[in-house]
Every structure is written in C-alpha cells, then in structure tokens.
C-alpha cells in the first residue's frame, strides 16, 4: 500500500539525530513489547509479511506520531484481535474477559535460542528459470497495490540494471495475505541517482532495491 511507511525520497523530516551510547531498549516497556511480538508470532500463526502489513496499514498521522515500538505494539494487537486470540475489550480493560483460544502453545524457554539462531530462511527451490539476467536493463512496474508490497514508490516506473540474482524467495505480496508463498526470483536492481531524482540528482549516487520478478518488466 502507498502508506506513510514508504518513506524513500520524502522531504521535510529534518536531520538524522544519532544518540551517543544508545541503549538497546529505551525503557522496560520496549523490552517487553519487543519480546511479546517475537514470542507471539508462532503461537499466533502469522508470518513476517503479515506482521509488516499490520504495522504499516494505518492512517499516516497514526504511523508518524507513534514511536517505533508503539507501532509494533499496535500491530501485535491487530494481529491477535483478527485471529480471536484476544478481544479489543480485553486490551482496553487490561484483563482477561474471555477463555483462551484452544490449541495455542507458547514458545518454551528451551526453544528460544534455537528458534532465533534458525530464523526464517525465505529461499525456496526454483520452479522455472529466471526471466532476467545480471546486467540486463529492466523497468520497475508502476503499480499501486492496496495491500502489502515491498516495491517502494520512489523506484516505480524507473529504469534499473539487474546486479545480483538471489535465487527464489517467498513473495511478500501474497504471503502477507495468507495466499501462499509463491516463491519468485529475487534480484538486486540498481538505479543511477539522476534516473530516480531528476537532472539535479547526485551523479555519483546509485541506489538499489531488492525486487521480486513480478515487480519488473522488460524494456
């Protein structure tokens, strides 16, 4: 979706402000919100693309006024309510008002380190040969899905060069909807600064995105 989360090239946000000696978390609630989000994914039954969509799918003023972990918290609440794990009333009341959903098993302490070390690899066996070759010029499609996509607005319609082929990977656009992994070839596509930002774009700049095959068209 063309939401506030898709920030590449936006103006007016001001300078980057690094924080010297920044802690991993700012306050205990960030620790707990982070851990709850990570620990609920498997019992809750959602994937990373569903999580990302739950965070970004909100009005711009809401996305831009919440801190990072407040967005995580809001996304977690959405995912759990959608699946009947908790109700909106329970979250607002701050207490249990309905029985738990049956068959939901928590991550046991012994599972934590192995699960983090394993992660969630997204590479899959190819079912067809790659359509594009390294070095080929391609155009990013000018599409505007209303659901989750990983095709940023600032590259849509622009010409780039295939630089790397990463094999076939789970396609977020379908996976976020529960419509299957639909693995597709994934490429790093490189763009020149002036191609993206016009004649005043920095000629020493090049930018790449990682793009699934169905984001690309031949030129």
């Amino acid at each position, binding site marked *: 979706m063309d939401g506030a*989360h898709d*920030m*590449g*090239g*936006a103006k007016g*946000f*001001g*300078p*980057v402000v*690094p*924080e010297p000696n920044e802690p*991993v*978390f700012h306050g205990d*609630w960030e*620790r*707990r*919100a*982070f*851990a*709850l989000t990570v*620990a*609920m994914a498997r*019992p809750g039954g959602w994937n990373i693309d569903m999580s*990302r969509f739950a965070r970004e799918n909100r009005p711009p003023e809401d996305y831009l006024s919440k801190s*990072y972990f*407040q967005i995580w918290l809001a996304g977690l609440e959405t995912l759990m309510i959608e699946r009947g*794990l*908790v109700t909106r009333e329970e*979250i607002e009341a*701050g*207490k*249990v008002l309905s029985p*738990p*959903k049956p068959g*939901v098993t*928590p*991550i046991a*302490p012994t599972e*934590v380190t192995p*699960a*983090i*070390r394993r*992660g969630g690899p*997204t*590479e899959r066996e190819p079912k067809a040969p790659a359509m594009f070759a390294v070095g080929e010029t391609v155009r990013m499609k000018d599409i505007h899905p209303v659901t989750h996509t*990983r*095709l*940023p607005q*600032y590259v849509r319609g622009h010409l780039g060069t295939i630089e790397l082929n990463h094999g076939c*990977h789970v396609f*977020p656009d379908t996976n976020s909807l529960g419509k299957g992994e639909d693995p597709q070839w*994934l490429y790093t596509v490189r763009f020149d600064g002036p191609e993206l930002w016009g004649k005043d774009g920095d000629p*020493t*700049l*090049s*930018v*790449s*995105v*990682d*793009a699934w095959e169905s984001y690309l068209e031949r030129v």
Partner: protein
Amino acid sequence: MSDHDHDHHGHHHDHDHSELSETELRVRALESILTEKGYVDPASLDLLIDLYEKKIGPRNGVRVVAKAWTDPAYHARLMKDATAAIAELDYSGRQGEHMVVVENTPEQHNMVVCTLCSCYPHPVLGLPPVWYKSAPYRSRAVSDPRGVLKDFGVTLPDATKIRVWDSTAEIRYLVLPMRPEGTEGWSAEQLAELVTRDSMIGTGLPKQPDGTA
C-alpha cells in the same frame, strides 16, 4: 553535539515521557493477559530480551570485519557467501538468514537503509538504533546520502561514488569498511577496537589508529 541537536533531542525525550505511562501500562496489561491465557511464557520473554541485550550486537560484526581485514582466505569466503562465512564465527539466524557483504573501496562507499521499515542484519549488528528506524534516515538515505553523512560528521571526497542498498527483501547487508592506514601488522583483536557499528552500516568510518574518529 551542537546546541541545536541537544535541544531537539531533549524535546524528543520529553515527548516520549508524556506518553510513556499510558503505553507502559498497556504493555504490562497485555503481557499479563497473554500469560494468563497461556500464549506466552514470561521466562521465554526474559530470555529473548537477554539475547538481544547481551549476545546479539555489533561486537559480532566487529569480529567479522577484523577477521576479513587480517585473513585473506576468510575475506574471499565472506565476499562469495557471506551467510556461510559469518556462520563460521557462529552468528546466524533471525534477520540474518541471507547475508551479503558489500566492501568499501577508495572509489565507492556503501551505505545500507530500509526505506519501508527497519530491516537490519541482527546476528551481526543487533537491533537497529532509533535513528536507523527514523523518518529522517529512511527518507533521505536514498536521495541525499551525502547530506545524511554530514549529519554523522562524515564527508567523503566529491569523486567517491556512493552506493546505497535499500533492504526491501530478506537479504541483509553488512558494510565491510576500509582498513585504516597505519595498521600494518596489527592483530585482529587490535583492529577490532577501530571498527564502529556505524562503519558497518555505512554512516560512519572506522576509527583511526590513534583512536580518533
């Protein structure tokens, strides 16, 4: 840090504080609901936090860089298959399943961003800092990277090409900075002292042999 930065920063924190109590209560209540319903085990949450506060952090990436600087065979493996080479040092998993290392040269400086959210190579760098997840960085890294570098006090020669990697998929990028001059004969352990987190994102450079930035 300039006075302007300091004011801006203080303001940001005041803003957070005004909302903290409500958010904090909400998180506490949610954890007790999920625990009571049997969906989470609080001991698992403690372990997760401990992992990300104590074990998974930029010191891991520092070891990768220092080894690449001192061991040509490792450097070659790292550039060919970063996921496998990083796993040799026992770093792997969540948000680092598919790694690519990009090497700075006198001709080209690399910088990593995620314009859509906060993708970052956790096994080697830990969780991302606030600035990396912020709107100023995510918006400007791809259009004005030299301006962003200025915010970090870094100026590159005009002729140096800048290559920005927007992590829009599950490939995670680690920048291999240039080994500082004047470090001939240094051990990996000595070199590790010069590698900063920001130099592995591309918003900074390694420290100089005399310890200055």
